[in-house]
């Protein structure tokens, strides 16, 4: 099954009430399939193909506030256009779920994959997850709703999946029986909803005397969601046998060098790790699944014995310290007793292929550079000069 179709099927199985989206490559297959499901009466919800992504998320904000389970999906420019509302959705504590089929931000215009879109709204206050394959995308739609709608969480959730590399790939997906899903994900019971029987004012403005307190409350909410995230993954694992963790590791325990990736890079990088292990090299892999709230403790634990980290970013922070993931990890490690060197590559932007051999080349280069004293290097990998 194509991963985008699986994602749309998950939205159907999650009994979403309102879907609002605007077509953009490479997210289109999701909305196309959802439209088909609605047209065939297989999804009992309202679907709106609206006039912009800004309105797509605004519609979801309205429907979610009315108490309806709501879904949208987008990519790249579309996410940039709706970015204003992403901050509002989390500030208003509305547990909308959005799939981002990650694609590069213009200019130059490019429809292919990288993480520059979602990194532009890194601080928008949503729970943000990255997936490595189609099964994870499918699974995380249910996980995202159950988690976001938890009364102790009430936050919107972004499920990131790499555009084309995941969205357009056909792979075997294990679908879950509807009965199990209905048990795992009962209908949404909002804490407050817009309804005349119990009038509430939502979206009041805050003077400086109260704004900081509301932001603090939001911050407390996202940090308090951490145990809920683990709990939800545990419950999902008990149901399906597929257990997820904020940080996944592969042959990492005794490795001197750790590759660090996020998203679909993970599978390719694990092939590279196997190849290097065969040559007797001490290399492992750390994959970040949970990006917000960032799992600092789990990450530090995973990096505890490594000499160096080779962090592969998929977005450039132009004029900044390299890639956003590497920056995050450097600050995560700064106060630690054990601080591995962080060597950073930005690779595969605008969907350029990154093969297992490329990961090996990056590890080679990083190890040599660190050996020679360039311990915190950064390079935009594979640039043709």
């Amino acid at each position, binding site marked *: 099954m194509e991963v985008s179709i699986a994602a749309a099927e998950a939205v159907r199985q999650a009994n979403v*009430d*309102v879907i*609002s989206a605007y077509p953009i490559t490479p997210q289109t297959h999701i909305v196309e399939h959802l439209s088909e499901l609605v047209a065939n009466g297989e999804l*009992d*919800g*309202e679907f*709106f193909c*609206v*006039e*912009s992504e*800004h*309105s797509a998320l*605004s*519609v*979801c*904000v*309205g*429907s*979610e*506030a*009315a*108490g*309806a389970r*709501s879904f949208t999906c987008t990519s790249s420019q579309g996410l940039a256009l709706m970015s*204003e*509302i992403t901050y*509002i959705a989390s500030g*208003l504590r509305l547990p909308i779920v959005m799939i981002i089929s990650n694609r590069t931000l213009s200019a130059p215009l490019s429809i292919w994959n990288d993480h520059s879109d979602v990194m532009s709204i890194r601080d928008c206050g949503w729970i943000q997850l990255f997936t490595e394959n189609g099964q994870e995308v499918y699974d995380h739609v249910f996980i995202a709703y159950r988690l976001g709608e938890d009364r102790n969480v009430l936050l919107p959730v972004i499920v990131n999946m790499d555009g084309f590399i995941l969205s357009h790939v056909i792979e075997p997906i294990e679908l879950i029986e509807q009965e199990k899903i209905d048990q795992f994900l009962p*209908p949404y019971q909002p804490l407050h909803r*817009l*309804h*005349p029987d119990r*009038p*509430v*004012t*939502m*979206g*009041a*403005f*805050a*003077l400086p005397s*109260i704004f900081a307190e*509301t932001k603090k409350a939001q911050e407390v909410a996202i940090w308090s969601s951490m145990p809920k995230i683990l709990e939800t993954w545990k419950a999902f694992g008990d149901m399906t046998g597929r257990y997820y963790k904020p940080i996944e590791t592969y042959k990492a325990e005794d490795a001197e060098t750790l590759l660090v990736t996020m998203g679909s890079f993970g599978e390719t990088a694990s092939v590279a790790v196997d190849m290097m292990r065969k040559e007797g090299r001490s290399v492992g892999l750390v994959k970040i699944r949970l990006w917000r709230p960032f799992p600092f403790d789990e990450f530090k634990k995973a990096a505890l014995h490594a000499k160096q980290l080779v962090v592969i970013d998929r977005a450039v922070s132009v004029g900044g310290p390299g890639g956003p993931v590497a920056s995050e990890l450097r600050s995560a490690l700064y106060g630690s007793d054990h601080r591995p060197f962080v060597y950073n590559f930005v690779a595969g932007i605008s969907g350029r292929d990154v093969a297992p051999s490329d990961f090996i080349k990056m590890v080679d280069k990083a190890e040599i550079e660190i050996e020679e004293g360039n311990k915190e290097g950064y390079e935009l990998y594979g640039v043709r000069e």
Partner: protein
Amino acid sequence: MTEKLNVYAVRMLTQKEYFAPGHRACQGCAEVLAVRLVAKALGRNVIVAAATGCMEIVSSPFPFTSWRVPWFHVAFENAAAVASGIESGLKVLMRKGRIPNKKIVTIAMAGDGGTADIGLQALSGALERDHDFIYICTDNEAYMNTGIQRSSSTPFGASTTTSPAGKVKMGQITWKKNMPAIVAAHNIPYVATACPSYPIDLVQKVKKAADTKGAAYVHILSVCPTGWRSAPELSIKLGRLAVETGVFPLYEVEKGRYHLSMDFPTLRPIKEYFKLQGRFRHLTDDMIQEIEKRIHQEYEELREKAKKGV
């Protein structure tokens, strides 16, 4: 067609207030009066999606609210999209039996900037999708909340802080965008103009909009003493003058058919309207005459449409 009433029968309105007193609007604000009347007209079974602007700021400084009905503010340009979502959410939840089935009117409310400028796209989208909602534009003819900057709804010749009358420019040099006509071009079932100086007419139109199946739009001229540089006690009079001079005719467009709510065989001189407002103070008699010519021409065109019933 709304009823013709010859008396100011204010007792015909409910005494109940759904928009509470104690808000922070300026003295003489006719926009807040319009909102109060709209709220009276709709009663309690309503949900309001408001755009950023004066009415949002004066009514919702946390932890206070002037709203006795459910009210939701999200952003500046998306009131119509948010209302679309609320309406759809209610519809699907009622269909699935998760909330009781009853008529709840969804309202989007925005100023002229949030409607004619930054919110036009979202409005057009919501109208095209034919959501069952009412869009209320309270038009005070500039960005008053941020300090009287011009919008595309500012009338020709008006001096604002970003279209100031200077040595070589005479204030706003573009003509007021015709929002009701743009909305009517979407072929929605009900479009109307109103003004709180005519409260019964306004209330009747809003009620009619609520009874309309599908999208309805009411464009309300809202005198702003602060931005128009007029005396607060003249707001009601200015609203009447806007109508009686032909500057802001009151009419309805029902299923595409135009109908004048009140017609004036002879319009009052536009100068009577202009002279009470500081924003037009710099205009010479010649300029006023030119403006009047176009206003009369537009009024005549509207009258023709109403006559033909198209």
